[in-house]
Structures are given as structure tokens and as C-alpha cells.
């Protein structure tokens, strides 16, 4: 079966009410939803009962306004903490955090911020302290930038 066929199988296996809710959470009027982001949307829906959103292997990350993409090669979790101003997103991969009003927005923001951080760490690799070098290596175990 082709890769697109495999992805489609995963999508149609998702419960219908979750699928449309998931698409609404992640897509916007101006941002088309790549097929890979369906798995992110599914993770966001599942996070509602656990405050933890799993980003699965195979998810494609991108930076808004950029042609840079990265592939998730190992699954990891984003922790979602409810606050007065919305949701805070963090993960063990990096010391960055993001704050947005909704779960969908904060997960999407966190993923692009994580990719941005990876690019910045790589750009400055020669000058990183030991602690920051460890963070770079840790992220690189989970995300691979596509050339």
C-alpha cells in the first residue's frame, strides 16, 4: 500500500466526531491542513482527558513563512497546562514554552517554536555551552530536518 494509502487508513479509522473536531482544532481559514497534521489533531483531541498531547513518529513540522520542514522520527509528548490566559505547552525536549488560548493553537505554536529552536541551536552549534549542546542533541534524536 502507498504511504498516502496508509495515512488514509489511519484517518478513516479515527472516530468521525473526533476527526472533524480535530481538523477544526488545527486548521484555519488561511492555513491548509497537510494530511500529516491529522495525526497531530488526533493527539490534541486525545489530550483533553490527560493534558498530554502525543506527537507521533512521521508527523511533518513546518515553520510559517519558511520552506523548512522537519520529520518527527521518534514520538514525544507535549504537556498542556491550563492557565488563566489559556494553555501553556512544554516538553522535556527543550526549555522553551508557548502560551495560547486553545489547545490546538498552543500545540501548533509549540511545534513550530521547537523547530525554530532546533534551527537556531544548529546555526549556533559552534558556540553552544555544554548544556545547550545537550539540548541540541536531545532534540535531534526526535526531529530530523528535511533537506
Amino acid at each position, binding site marked *: 500500500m502507498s504511504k498516502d494509502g496508509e495515512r488514509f487508513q489511519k484517518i478513516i479509522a479515527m472516530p468521525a466526531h473526533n476527526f472533524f473536531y480535530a481538523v477544526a482544532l488545527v486548521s484555519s481559514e488561511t492555513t491548509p491542513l497537510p494530511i500529516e497534521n491529522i495525526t497531530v489533531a488526533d493527539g490534541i483531541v486525545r489530550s483533553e482527558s490527560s493534558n498530554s498531547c502525543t506527537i507521533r513518529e512521521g508527523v511533518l513540522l513546518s515553520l510559517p513563512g519558511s520552506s523548512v520542514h522537519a520529520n518527527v522520527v521518534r514520538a514525544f509528548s507535549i504537556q498542556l497546562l491550563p492557565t488563566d*490566559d489559556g494553555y501553556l505547552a512544554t516538553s522535556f525536549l527543550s*526549555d522553551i514554552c508557548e502560551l495560547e488560548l486553545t489547545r490546538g493553537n498552543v500545540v501548533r505554536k509549540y511545534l513550530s517554536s521547537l523547530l*525554530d529552536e532546533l534551527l*537556531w541551536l544548529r546555526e549556533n552549534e559552534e558556540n553552544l555551552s555544554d548544556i545547550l549542546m545537550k539540548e541540541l542533541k536531545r532534540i535531534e534524536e526526535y526531529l530530523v530536518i528535511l533537506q
Partner: protein
Amino acid sequence: MGISVSDLIRLAETVLGCEREKGTDHVRYVLRIEKKIIGRFKFSHSWRKNQQIDGYILGMQAKSMHCSPQTWKMLLEGKMTRADYFGELLAHGVITPEEYAQLMK
């Protein structure tokens, strides 16, 4: 009155001497000794200067700047000096005595 984005900018630029890097979505502050990057933190362009910063975010920033949340908060409130902060970095082995001396110049 809590800690605002303005307090964060003041601490980074005036007290610690961090370099400001402007990205597409975020502002990043970087603490360097010569070329070596010791710590960094960033926040979204969408944050207003008078926006109050959540305590959890302050904790994450403290972690990325290699100090305790209490130290970071006291720095932001002006109750601790750069010498205290760099002394904490030295005590925890984040910087060497030579690097401490350079930072204190």
C-alpha cells in the same frame, strides 16, 4: 502587581547585557561570554509590554537561564543584582571563574 514583559526586557538588556535577536515569531535574548552562548530565552512577538508573565513561564525561563525560579523572580523585581546571578552560575558550574570575571567587567 506581577512581573511584566517590560520587566523581562529591562532585565535582559539593561541588567544582564543579553543580545536581542529578532525572529519571525519570537524575540530571543542570548547571554554570551565572548562567542560562547551560556543561556537564552524567547517570547512571542504577540506579547504586549504590559502583559503579566505567568509564574510557570518564569520557571521555564529560569531553567533556560540556569538559575532557580526564585533567583529569576528576584532579578526581575530588582531585588538581586547581576553579580548575584553570575555568582549563582559560577557556583553551579555553568561558568568558570575566568568567565565570571569577564562577565563582571
